[in-house]
């Protein structure tokens, strides 16, 4: 087998991205939405790594960015889960449609 | 001489003190601050007169310039001429009376006084600014607190009124801002400035004057109730608390008149001549139509508000005539109307506090139970209908004379129309006075009403003193205002 090329990886990351987007739009459970967001982030990470490896192999910028994103994603997950817990406390549910007070 | 910036700064300092000190001191601190202001204004007037007597004939006295936005060439440029001094005097009297009248305010006194002081600061700053950008900033400072004053302490349909007032005045401000910026960008790069004196010495080309003048004039005109943008006046005045109405009619409407004169007419003399007919016709409509609309009102505050539309028409009429007497008369009328209408609103507030009604038909015979307040109402009314000996007379007569000075038929017709308002004014004022102060006591509860308090008496006396002094000795004000007016006329002739 050939080693996977850039296009393969890009295909996977695009698929991952849209799976995440799909999850984000269709799921009602906030945890699942959070997971979808992680999928999106991971697809971006994958892109960075792939471009780093195939386009600028002598540089490490992509890797650094990926590390940043992982760190931020972790922080974000903590934040998001805190919000979700608070939502659960006040609304007794983590259905995203229940939290729609912030409207006109 | 004190530096001019002290005038707008004093109220702000007072307001800061009010914030810092406990609530029980609020009234006294405010009053002390206003008295200081009055003293500063008196000092300013005296030293102004002194300088003029010594032959200092420069356009603006006490000129001072503080760098502000140097990249835009906008600075805190202050200076006064006779017209500004007259307006500052008016402001100080009305502010003091307004503070005194609100002495017994119950709800959120601290905030109320702070807002009043802010308004005063805005007005002072506006009248001394010689930089259009600064002028605009002070104008905004003088507008926004009014929204809160009406919205929080108002009565009746207050939310509607507050919104309407704020939105209409903001629309006016927007027009002014556009005008000022346009003016700024009309100047060649490198020479761009908001400075009044600079613009004065480099007049705009006629073409851009013709576009700009309506913007600026209507913008300021909204403040001074130019027809047909006057509808904020009745609602705003009637919903505002007493001191709010006093400030609104006594000072804010004068911001507009002053702006029309100082910014629109002086900086764009050729366009002013071009649009003069439109201005005087609109003014005459405001005068006559406002007076007729007043006749049909039944609420004292509405009566005074509509009559303000009519009276402010004289200001615009005088300015629109572009004669020396006309402009003198406009300034006189601003001072006179400021004092008189402030007195009127103060008295209405006092009556309302006692009778809990503002309907003309529900009062009656108040002269018997509250003679002092009724007498003050009489004086305000007589001043409004232009009785000699009170301030309205010299003001209106000077406007009429200025109007008649223009030999063209249309101006004379307009002047005659404006003259007619003296009869209509007499009708509605006497109707109002006749059925509130005179006549039989209609409500038995009104047989015994609390007499006027010291603060109310003092407020009324301050305003009445201003009215009487101006009415009996108009030449004092004339000597103050006339040199400045002559400069404007000279500008018109050369520009």
């Amino acid at each position: 087998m050939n080693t996977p090329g850039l296009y393969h990886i890009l295909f996977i990351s695009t698929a991952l991205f849209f799976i995440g987007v799909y999850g984000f739009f269709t799921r009602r459970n906030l945890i699942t939405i959070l997971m979808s967001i992680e999928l999106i982030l991971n697809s971006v990470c994958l892109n960075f790594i792939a471009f780093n490896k195939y386009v600028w192999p002598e540089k490490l910028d992509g890797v650094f960015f990926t590390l940043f994103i992982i760190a931020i994603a972790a922080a974000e997950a903590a934040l998001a889960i805190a919000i979700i817990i608070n939502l659960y406390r006040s609304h007794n549910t983590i259905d995203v449609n229940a939290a729609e007070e912030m409207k006109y | 001489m004190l530096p001019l910036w002290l005038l707008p700064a004093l109220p702000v300092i007072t307001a800061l003190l009010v914030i810092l000190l406990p609530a029980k001191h609020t009234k006294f601190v405010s009053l002390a601050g206003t008295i200081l202001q009055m003293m500063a204004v008196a000092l300013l007037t005296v030293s102004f007169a002194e300088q003029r007597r010594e032959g200092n004939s420069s356009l603006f006295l006490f000129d001072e310039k503080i760098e502000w936005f140097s990249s835009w060439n906008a600075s805190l440029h202050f200076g006064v001429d006779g017209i500004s001094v007259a307006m500052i005097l008016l402001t100080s009297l009305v502010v003091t009376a307004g503070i005194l009248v609100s002495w017994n305010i119950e709800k959120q006194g601290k905030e109320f006084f702070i807002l009043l002081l802010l308004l005063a600061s805005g007005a002072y700053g506006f009248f001394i600014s010689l930089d259009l950008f600064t002028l605009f900033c002070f104008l905004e400072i003088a507008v926004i607190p009014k929204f809160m004053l009406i919205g929080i302490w108002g009565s009746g349909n207050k939310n509607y009124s507050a919104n309407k007032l704020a939105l209409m005045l903001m629309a006016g401000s927007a027009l002014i801002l556009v005008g000022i910026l346009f003016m700024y960008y009309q100047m060649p790069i490198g020479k761009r400035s908001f400075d009044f004196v600079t613009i004065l010495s480099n007049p705009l080309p006629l073409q851009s004057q013709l576009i700009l003048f309506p913007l600026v004039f209507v913008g300021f005109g909204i403040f001074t109730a130019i027809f047909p943008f006057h509808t904020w006046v009745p609602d705003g005045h009637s919903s505002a608390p007493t001191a709010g109405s006093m400030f609104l009619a006594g000072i804010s409407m004068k911001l507009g008149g002053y702006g029309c004169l100082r910014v629109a007419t002086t900086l764009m003399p050729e366009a002013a001549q071009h649009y003069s007919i439109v201005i005087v016709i609109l003014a005459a409509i405001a005068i006559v139509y406002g007076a007729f609309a007043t006749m049909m009102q039944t609420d004292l505050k509405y009566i005074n508000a509509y009559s303000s539309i009519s009276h402010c028409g004289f200001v615009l009429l005088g300015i629109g005539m572009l004669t020396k007497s006309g402009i003198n008369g406009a300034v006189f009328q601003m001072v006179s109307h400021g004092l008189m209408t402030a007195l009127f609103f103060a008295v209405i507030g006092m009556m309302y506090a006692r009778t809990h009604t503002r309907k003309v038909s529900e009062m009656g015979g108040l002269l018997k139970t509250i003679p002092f307040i009724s007498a003050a109402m009489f004086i305000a009314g007589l001043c409004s209908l232009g009785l000699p000996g009170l301030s309205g007379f010299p003001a209106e007569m000077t406007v009429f004379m200025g109007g008649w000075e223009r030999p063209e038929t249309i101006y004379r017709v307009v002047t005659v129309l404006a003259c007619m308002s003296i009869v209509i004014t007499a009708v509605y004022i006497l109707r109002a006075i006749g059925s509130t102060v005179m006549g039989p006591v209609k409500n038995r509860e009104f047989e015994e009403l609390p007499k006027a308090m010291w603060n109310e008496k003092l407020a009324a006396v301050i305003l009445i003193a201003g009215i009487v002094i101006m009415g009996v000795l108009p030449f004092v004000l004339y000597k103050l205002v006339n040199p400045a007016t002559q400069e404007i006329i000279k500008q018109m002739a050369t520009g």
Partner: protein
Amino acid sequence: MPELILILLIPIMPFAAFLLLGLANGNFIKRWAGAIGTGAILVSAGAALLTAYDYFFVYGGSGGAYRKILVTEYEWLQFTPEISIKMGLLLDPVAVMMMVVISFISLMVHSYSICYLKGEQRFNIYFSYLGLFTFSMLALVMSSNIFQMYIFWELVGVSSFLLIGFYYQKPSAVAAAKKAFIITRFADLGLLIGILILAFEAKSLDFEAIIGQFGHGKSASVSTSSAWLGISTISWAMLLVFIGGAGKSAMFPLHVWLPDAMEGPTPVSALIHAATMVVAGVFLVARLFPVYYFSAPEILNLIAYVGVFSALIAAIIACTQTDIKRVLAYSTMSQIGFMMFSLGVSGFGEEGLGFTASQFHLFTHAFFKALLFLCAGLVIHEVHSNEVSKMGGLRKSMPLTHISFLIACLAIAGIPPFAGFFSKEEILLAAWERNKPVYWIALFTSALTAFYMFRLYFLIFRNSNKHLHQPEHREGSAGQMVPLFVLAAGSVVLGLIPFGRFVSSDGRPLATELHLVFSIAPVLLAILGVSTAAWLYNAPGNRPQEVSQRLGNLYKAAYHKFYIDEVWLFLTKKVIMNGIGKPAAWFDKNVVNALVNFSGNSTIGLASKIKKLQSGKVQLYGMVYLFTVIASVLIIIFFINRN
């Protein structure tokens, strides 16, 4: 030369009284207000008499004529370098004469009022208002500048308003005060516009300058320079000025306020609405007489007809009224009509008999009309009613008042040798010489005058068979009777003054003599009027009713004052209020304001449409975001590819 202090004292004293009594509020002031006010006027009247003496006999005359003396002047308010309001004091024969009349009658009224208003709660305010009025009226007649005159013109108007509405709790008094002020104000509009025109035609507001420009034989050519509707500008100005005078002087059709003004206290009616303020219009025309004569003769002619018509119509109405004060008010209007038309028919200089006669009549009228009102005040106090039907036979209970009233009636009726006879003869003579139609109407009116005055006299003091009441305090107190006697004495002897020596149209003495033959007709007619009144009202039975029934509609119309009040009411209520005021208010509310509201509401409406997008659904926001990004990316790519 005139002494400034002395002359200044004349207006200043009443003004000081006004300030003191109006502002001070102590018990002392309240109690002694009458004395203080009277004292001030006493000084003022003394100064006026002294000044008059000095003017007429010491310094006023030069070269056989009385000149105009400008005592002092101060620039009060400048409009243009030439046109400015000046506060000045101008002495000329007419002004000096008016000054004496005003201060003297005011003194009488002050003294009378002390007792008349005793116990009134606003005693001091009353005297304060009287002081204000006296001050303004004195300053009015001494004005050197037409605008200064306008200022005091307004001030007398407002003091009249305050005094008519003195009993402010009476709705009728308030209504009358408003009516008086508004109607005179309406007339003042004419005066104001007239002044504006005049100011810019003459390039000055000073009487001297205006008269100097338009008041001589050569000015006719000046004035016809520009014309409108076939009448020269200066004539328009003078017409408008006359409208102002007509309003103040209650000329038809601006007279409707005068009868109602009788709601005020009776001494006030005597002072303001009989003797002084209402003749201000006559004074105004007299002041500008040269301008009228030389530059606006057609207006002078109009004045003659307006005057005589007012005199006639007022006399007819006076015959039918039953309120004692209203009869006197109409009689005042009628007498002022005499003064007016006398000015209207007058010539200038040698032919200026009408001018002199008019001023003479003004002078004598002030005395006997004030006397009539003061007597009426006593009668009203006695019977507590204004209606003549409640009176009768008072001759016995009030003999002194009766004599005074009788003297005044004889004077006004023009019976020799009372004062009114002389002045009225002069007026009639002037009319006979220069305008016959006016003369005939005036003659008839003077007969009517005798009739209605004696009708009043007989109804009140004779006709004892309907003695309806028990007299209470009979005569008035000394403070009231003394003015009565003084005025009565004046009404008897003042006619003997050679008035033409002092007051004439050009300052030169004018010889006036009585033509006995000419006097026969008016005197006979007056006697006829008196006897008709006696036949009708001093007899048992109901002859008056029979006569009035026979007169039918004429009587009814006169009784309803020819429906002029109704016309005014229609004009104000229906035309102005409903026709202009209401539409204006409606327009403001439903058009102008509605447009403002519409712009506000449409913004709000648009916003409420848009705000639905703000649904609160996070996923929806995300979707919108995503598709916006995709769309923009596609658009950008599209544009990049196109280039």
